[in-house]
């Protein structure tokens, strides 16, 4: 079947609307009577378990490329003693949170879209409504708030593992010993850099989860459409992660909170 041009445009428009409506619905229901504590706990554990392995693999990959780049330029310019400074700085400020955000969107965000979309498809959301249970409150809010807590924690683990794997690979490939790496590694690292990157992770977790849930929540159609919606969830959330990162970058430069 040939895809009509404006059909694709309409689908993206609908996706955009779903997300905006979800922002409204979320803010409305967040402060209404019952707060879903139990579901929040369940979703916290679930997002931690789902995100952990993927994000840790991402941390090791970061170690790989930072060690390679750092080692290469360190070699060329004879600046081994500054490799530690450069890599920890970039891990804490940019790469770790970017990687964690993208992998979280890919692993946990898409899972939310598929899960809530298929609940909608099979009538489970309607069943909840008919029992006077608001799906935003029962399904969406716990997932979003759990993600706000989970992503910074996973990001912190990722920081540690990324630095450790950079050290290991530098030693393996370029013979940079741990003491040399560590000598200046944390010299310029201000607490505000770490705090800001954790806040950034929390905000990424928030929007990734909220967008993913919104796309699932307002989903209509069958299996083919659910596949397309899931793709949109991934694309939109990747863009969100990049943009949030960019906005923080600008804030940091303007205020001087995160610069050396």
């Amino acid at each position: 079947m040939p895809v009509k041009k404006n059909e694709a445009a309409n689908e993206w428009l609908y996706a955009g609307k779903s997300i905006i409506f979800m922002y409204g619905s979320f803010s409305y229901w967040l402060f209404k009577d019952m707060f879903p504590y139990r579901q929040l706990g369940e979703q916290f554990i679930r997002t931690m378990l789902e995100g952990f392995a993927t994000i840790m693999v991402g941390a090791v990959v970061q170690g790989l490329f930072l060690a390679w780049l750092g080692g290469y330029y360190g070699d060329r310019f004879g600046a081994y003693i500054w490799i530690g400074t450069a890599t920890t700085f970039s891990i804490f400020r940019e790469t770790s949170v970017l990687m964690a955000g993208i992998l979280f969107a890919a692993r946990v965000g898409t899972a939310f879209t598929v899960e809530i979309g298929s609940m909608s498809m099979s009538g489970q959301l309607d069943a909840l409504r008919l029992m006077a249970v608001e799906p935003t409150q029962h399904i969406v809010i716990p997932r979003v708030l759990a993600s706000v807590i989970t992503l910074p924690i996973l990001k912190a683990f990722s920081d540690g593992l990324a630095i450790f794997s950079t050290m290991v690979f530098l030693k393996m490939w370029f013979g940079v010993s741990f003491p040399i790496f560590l000598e200046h590694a944390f010299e310029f690292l201000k607490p505000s850099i770490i705090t800001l990157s954790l806040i950034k992770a929390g905000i990424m977790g928030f929007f990734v989860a909220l967008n993913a849930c919104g796309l699932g929540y307002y989903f209509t159609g069958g299996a083919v459409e659910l596949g397309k919606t899931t793709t949109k969830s991934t694309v939109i959330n990747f863009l969100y992660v990049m943009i949030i990162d960019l906005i923080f970058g600008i804030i940091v430069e303007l205020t001087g909170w995160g610069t050396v």
Partner: protein
Amino acid sequence: MIEVKNLYKSFGENDVLKGLYLTVEERKATVVIGRSGIGKSVLLRCISGLLRPDSGEIFIDGDDITKASRAKLLKIRSKIGMLFQEGALFDSLTVFENVAFPLAYHQLYSEVEIERKVMKYLEIVEMEKFVDAYPGELSGGMRRKVAIARAMILEPKYLFYDEPTSGLDPYSSAVVEIMIKKLQSELNITSLIVTHDIELTRFIADYIALLENGKITAMESRDMAFTEDSLVYEHFIKRRERIRAENGY
């Protein structure tokens, strides 16, 4: 009593309901028959307040749900239980948790009381042995029965069934049919069933309404509907023979 008056609902260019009238009598089983994609589920979703119609009125015991506030809507909805197409059980919960869900969520009863009620309804649908199973582990017919128990647990006055036997083999269909009949006669439920299963209709209907082209085009009692010259018979049984004949069989 449920009264639907001049109901319109469309999705974009697709006009699904076009001035539909329907009356559902208390303590009777009304069956709406119509072919797939004609708008049976849309009708049920409108009547249960899950979908807002474009225009028209829907009175449930005299209250118009199309104009009700949210609080009022919730109150009216508490009179309604629904068996969704395919059951719509929560995949992540066990059979027991599924049936207990509405009671537990709203903390209406103590744990002991909840357990007693859940077991009572699971026994009515003969699913008490499967309390710890997940919906994914059950057959279509079993899932349907658990969904009936879940719809019953809040003791609604009205019970809506969306194609209760679709996709079931004749044996499971018979079991579900008997369940519906039992609830109908023992608990005096007012049932509204949408289906295209003519055997189910013959077995449980008190009244039969024919949904065609966005409207109810005929409403007949069961005794009438299955006689040779009824409209329902004409549209639903003779049509099949006619289509066969047209194709030379």
